[in-house]
């Protein structure tokens, strides 16, 4: 009897265990799903049916950069929220741009969406490779307009996403140049951050004199010098815009390079480097400038606002906590050409509605509030007042400088935004490089640039 009871108990337990196992497994799975969904559904996601494209797969291409890594960490949450699968491919910017334009121009629609840089906007928008996003923003089936609140974007920031009246991308960063300066050195020499170009040169001269006198070891100034449209070409054109000069008028097809204004920009840019930069910096790009600044060898430069993350990281920066941030020197009419990254939809994507949900999610106030403290340059203005964001930034001076630029320091429609920027800026930056290397003087370089540009159809304005 006892034996029979024991056998019965064992059989009963075995049956219970076998029956319970799938239930336990499914329970575990659903707990994981719930955790993912909870992560995806963390916060207010508006009145949108996020699951309406469940089961679809999106191919997303993005430049490998800090904000891309921040997004990458959130992809699982998006997948849990929508039930879609996302292939999130990171590539260095040069390769990303090549791959994207080859795919978009082939009309194959391999990538549903990708990041678009402001300066390269027209390369994609002008040939019609990007879908007009206004239709998606205004579609109540896809967008909860009240929750999404596109009015939260500063007008100049969202304006930069328009090309010929079409909203071709929604920004997720708002970037621009800020003056970076060493607060400890400025305090030691009783200097204040320069606001004009004359101030900038005068301040650099004082810093240089202090270095030569042995008071400081840092060089006064440096700027990007490696030739190329995405290298020194961008800094040179931005400097020109802050001086209210356009090297080229793309609409009138005229070149201002060899005009007195154009030459004054070339002279200022190259002479600041020749007079005040460390020796042998002719092939420096962002990487070298940042490294030199972080290691305390530069007293002042202009750099992107997004770079604060590595300047303020004590693990990699000797100057963490000693960097001041201010709007870059500008003339009264000059503005910094905005730089921003936005999400654009491939006009040939076969999943445009589903891809829009990704854009909506990635640029939503909910997600941007969550992730902005990790990259510091959000495109939505409400984020700048969020306690979590303020706490994560290097200081109120940094936020004030950003807000100044967002509200009045950037030009959302600078003349340089043109599909031909890459070619023309490359030519002019090559001549700038010739000046720095001492191969040509400013007059010769400007004249040679004009000669090359005239072959492309640009008439010298002088």
């Amino acid at each position, binding site marked *: 009897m006892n034996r029979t009871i024991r056998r019965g108990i064992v059989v009963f337990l075995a049956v219970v265990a076998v029956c319970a196992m799938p239930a336990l497994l499914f329970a575990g799975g659903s707990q994981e799903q719930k955790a993912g969904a909870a992560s995806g559904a963390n916060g207010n996601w508006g009145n949108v049916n996020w699951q309406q494209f469940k089961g679809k797969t999106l191919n997303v291409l993005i430049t490998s950069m800090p904000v891309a890594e921040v997004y990458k960490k959130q992809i699982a949450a998006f997948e849990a929220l929508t039930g879609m699968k996302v292939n999130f491919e990171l590539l260095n910017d040069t390769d990303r741009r090549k791959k994207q334009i080859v795919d978009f121009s082939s009309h194959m629609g391999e990538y549903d969406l990708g990041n678009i840089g402001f300066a390269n906007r027209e390369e994609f928008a002008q040939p019609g490779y990007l879908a007009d996003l206004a239709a998606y923003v205004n579609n109540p089936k896809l967008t909860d307009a009240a929750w999404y609140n596109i009015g939260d974007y500063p007008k100049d920031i969202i304006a930069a996403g328009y090309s010929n009246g079409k909203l071709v991308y929604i920004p997720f960063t708002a970037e621009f140049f800020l003056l970076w300066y060493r607060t400890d050195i400025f305090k030691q020499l009783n200097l204040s951050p320069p606001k004009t170009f004359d101030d900038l040169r005068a301040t650099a001269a004082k810093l240089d004199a202090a270095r030569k006198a042995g008071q400081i070891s840092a060089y006064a100034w440096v700027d990007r010098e490696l030739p190329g449209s995405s290298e020194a070409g961008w800094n040179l054109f931005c400097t020109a815009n802050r001086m209210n000069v356009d090297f080229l008028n793309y609409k009138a097809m005229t070149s201002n390079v060899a005009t007195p204004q154009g030459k004054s920009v070339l002279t200022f840019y190259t002479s600041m480097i020749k007079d005040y930069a460390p020796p042998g910096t002719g092939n420096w790009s962002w990487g070298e400038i940042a490294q030199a600044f972080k290691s305390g060898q530069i007293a002042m430069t202009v750099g992107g606002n997004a770079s604060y993350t590595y300047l303020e990281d004590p693990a990699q920066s000797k100057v963490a906590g000693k960097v001041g941030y201010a709007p870059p020197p500008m003339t009264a009419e000059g503005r910094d050409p905005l730089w921003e990254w936005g999400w654009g939809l491939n006009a040939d994507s076969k999943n445009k509605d589903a891809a829009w949900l990704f854009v909506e999610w990635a640029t939503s106030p909910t997600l941007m509030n969550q992730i902005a403290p990790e990259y510091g340059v959000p495109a939505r203005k409400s984020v700048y007042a969020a306690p979590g964001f303020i706490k994560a930034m290097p200081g109120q001076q940094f936020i004030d400088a950003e807000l100044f630029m967002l509200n009045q320091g950037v030009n959302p429609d600078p003349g340089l935004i043109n599909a031909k920027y890459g070619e023309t800026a490359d030519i002019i930056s090559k001549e700038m490089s010739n000046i720095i*290397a*001492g191969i040509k003087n400013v007059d010769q370089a400007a004249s040679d640039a004009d000669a090359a540009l005239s072959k492309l159809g640009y008439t010298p304005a002088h």
Partner: protein
Amino acid sequence: MATTSAYNRDDRTFPYIAIMPVALIVLLLGAVPAGYTFLLSLQRYELINPPAVYIGMKNFVTLLTDDPRFVHALVFTLCFALVATSLELVIGFFIAHLLADREVSHFFSSMIRTLLLVPFVVAPVVASYTFKTLIYDQTFGYLNNVLKLVGIPGVDLFHGSIAAPIGILVMELILRTPFIVIILYAAISSIEVSIFDASKIDGVNWAQNIGRVIIPVIRPIIVIGCILRFMDALKMFDEIYVVTAGGPGYVTENLSIFATTQAFTYFHMGYAAAAAFLFLLVVVFLVALFMRRIRL
């Protein structure tokens, strides 16, 4: 009268069948892209301004008659490849000769050969960044710090129009000469010792030993090494792209940089294809000429 052969028909056709897969791969990876490049080169094809328009040979005419930048890139490419290959061959031969010398200890020789293999396992981009930042750079590089210690002014790659090509050349010599050393070492080591002994008995001196014994024996290997290095130097890209980006100005812009810039910065795909096709013709012509002259 019927011809006779020691081989039957199957035996004669087998080599063609065996080589077919490789021939197909070569066709797909070589001839098809070359053909497509030629077709592209006959069009005005702007990635940012489609569609493509057939324009015949206009791209070629413009490149050869109205584009001094292309001509400069072509001349720089050829001069650089010739100088780099010649120097690598001379330096590589003497290093290989020293390492293969029976007087040199086997341990020392094998240690040096192992060290010489290092450039092969380092990606060109990594090696280029190393040279750009850790060696040449005046702020971060140790070369200039060492030079400063001995009172020599630092090297500035972007000063004048001579320093950058020399800097790239030195980098290329350091990175690529080991290839020549390794293959020539193997060739010299494989020469029968009895040949050296016989030449010694005949009273040849050091120079005669090199010129009349070693070089004639290993000439096929020298030619192969020379052709491989020459073609590599012609299509060099990573080193220039990373270290100088073709600068200062256009000084170090070779044909690879020129064609890539035309295609992916300017988006002139047809024009870039024409430049690439001309480049292909130049390479094929030079290699054919070289092989004919050397009579490999």
